[in-house]
């Protein structure tokens, strides 16, 4: 446990001692801020129009602003996760510090979990930025907070799953660019997998689309926590980290 905390602290300091964390925060704040602004502006304009046309049904902030925003955040996350995970192990391998970690009395899974948790916390910090934006919605209306929180939880789970995949990929190379690129490709693939369900109804298409991370995020953005989605993400995290640990072990056999 102490080892996990030690590695975790070192990683967190590492993120915030280098420009990476700040760059990611700025990047996320900018993009999310833009999406937020346009969603709110759109909502306002639509609201005025519908009032002028004499519709009595009030528009719902949750449906019109928060849900699309959460979906946007999930897509931005797809782009940022490779940037978080790419140096995780690749950099240690390149600089030789992996030799320190692997010759210290620490178990491989402790290294993996420490690093993973640090990356996850960084990702949670990014989400906090979006949370702040959304909190500002209180000025515009009375959103229902439950779907917001559930949506953020969904983002956190989705992020965890993709981070675990990124961690795995980072152990396979000593080149950060390759690690980042490959992670991005996989994230993108997991994202677009559900497109097949648009034109194919066969069983295989359902299975493929089941694998899509976005597919499992949808219910969260509507405020619904479905066990099957939680299980999906938890499985990805577990297997991702399990394979990362194995890969770290086999690094010794291959190198």
């Amino acid at each position: 446990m102490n080892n996990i905390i030690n590695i975790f602290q070192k990683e967190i300091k590492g993120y915030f001692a280098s420009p990476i964390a700040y760059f990611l925060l700025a990047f996320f704040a900018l993009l999310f801020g833009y999406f937020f602004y346009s969603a709110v502006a759109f909502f306002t304009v639509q609201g005025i129009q519908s009032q002028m046309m004499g519709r009595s049904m009030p528009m719902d902030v949750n449906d019109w602003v928060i849900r699309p925003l959460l979906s946007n955040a999930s897509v931005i996350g797809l782009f940022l996760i490779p940037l978080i995970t790419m140096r995780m192990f690749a950099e240690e391998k390149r600089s030789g510090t992996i030799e320190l970690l692997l010759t210290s009395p620490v178990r491989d899974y402790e290294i993996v979990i420490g690093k993973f948790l640090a990356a996850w916390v960084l990702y949670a910090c990014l989400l906090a930025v979006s949370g702040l934006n959304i909190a500002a919605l209180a000025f515009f209306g009375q959103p229902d907070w439950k779907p917001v929180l559930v949506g953020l939880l969904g983002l956190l789970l989705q992020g965890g799953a993709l981070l675990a995949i990124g961690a795995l990929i980072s152990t396979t190379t000593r080149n950060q660019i390759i690690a980042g690129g490959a992670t991005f490709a996989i994230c993108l693939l997991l994202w677009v997998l559900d497109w097949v369900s648009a034109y194919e109804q066969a069983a295989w298409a359902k299975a493929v689309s089941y694998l899509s991370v976005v597919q499992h995020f949808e219910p969260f953005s509507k405020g619904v926590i479905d066990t099957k989605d939680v299980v999906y993400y938890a499985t990805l995290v577990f297997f991702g980290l399990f394979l990362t640990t194995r890969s770290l072990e086999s690094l010794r056999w291959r190198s």
Partner: protein
Amino acid sequence: MIRVQGLTKRYARHVAVDNISFEVQKGQIVGFLGPNGAGKTTTMRVLTCFLPPSEGKAEVAGFDVVEQPLEVKKRIGYLPETPPLYPDMEVEEYLAFVGRLKGIPSASLARRVSEVCERCAVADVRKKLIAKLSKGYRQRVGLAQAIIHNPDVLVLDEPTSGLDPKQIIETRELIRDLAGDHTIILSTHILSEVETSCQQVIIINKGRVVATDSFSNLTNRLRGAEAIAVEFASSVPAAEAAGRFGQIPGVSRVVPREPRHDRHVVEIEMPSGSGVRAEVARLVVNSGWELYEMRSVGFSLEEVFLQLTGSPEQVAPVAAAAEGGAQ
């Protein structure tokens, strides 16, 4: 303390370490000597559980590196070829991180960090970012990192590379200080380093142990003997002189050397303690050769090393010349 038996390590198909065996007793300093690519780093990586052996066994402090790696790792301090440093950290912060990693309780952590900073002469850069340190200072931080948990066994891969002469001497002293309580195995190309700090030498070449012995035994065993250099006027035909020297009973080898100031130099080797020196002197005087000098020559470690590792380009000409000279 360290026992290696039939250790083989293959990378893909390339054999980096080929069936080597050696033992190191507690409290000894052992020099691991060999040309580039000999397999020193590979062997050390196996000892530190970074790489598993392909075949054979390695034990550190009685624990097998494959079966009980955690126990081995607790007892070993390792300075890899490139010091494993995080450039974003301050020296002190880094040493504290490594200290915790090695399981030093937090109560004594700060004290240990100060101690190793003093010992490895990095106290003046404690608060500096590692990225901003010079190469020599990085090497020192690497050394500090290796000894922070006071390990039973120290594995140092070229500990003095990149240090200035003063620091090299201090590091050697540090290493000698550490011996006794610690068992140390260090690799180097600097032969004099082995001479000054190691009690035992293991010379490996192309993945095989070519010699393991104490340094002085090694030089003796190698040439079996002592040698004298005889310098005489060039008016004497060198080949003839060499031939006559070779006929003296007890002379094991005659090696012509580079002429000096136009004077011939031959080296004559003999078993130690034999009376050959007097015979040589008598021969020179009786033949009326103009003798300029006759002195004992020690064997330099370089020669020992080159002979044992047998780089053909270096040793062959001498051997060939010796044969030619002896005819």
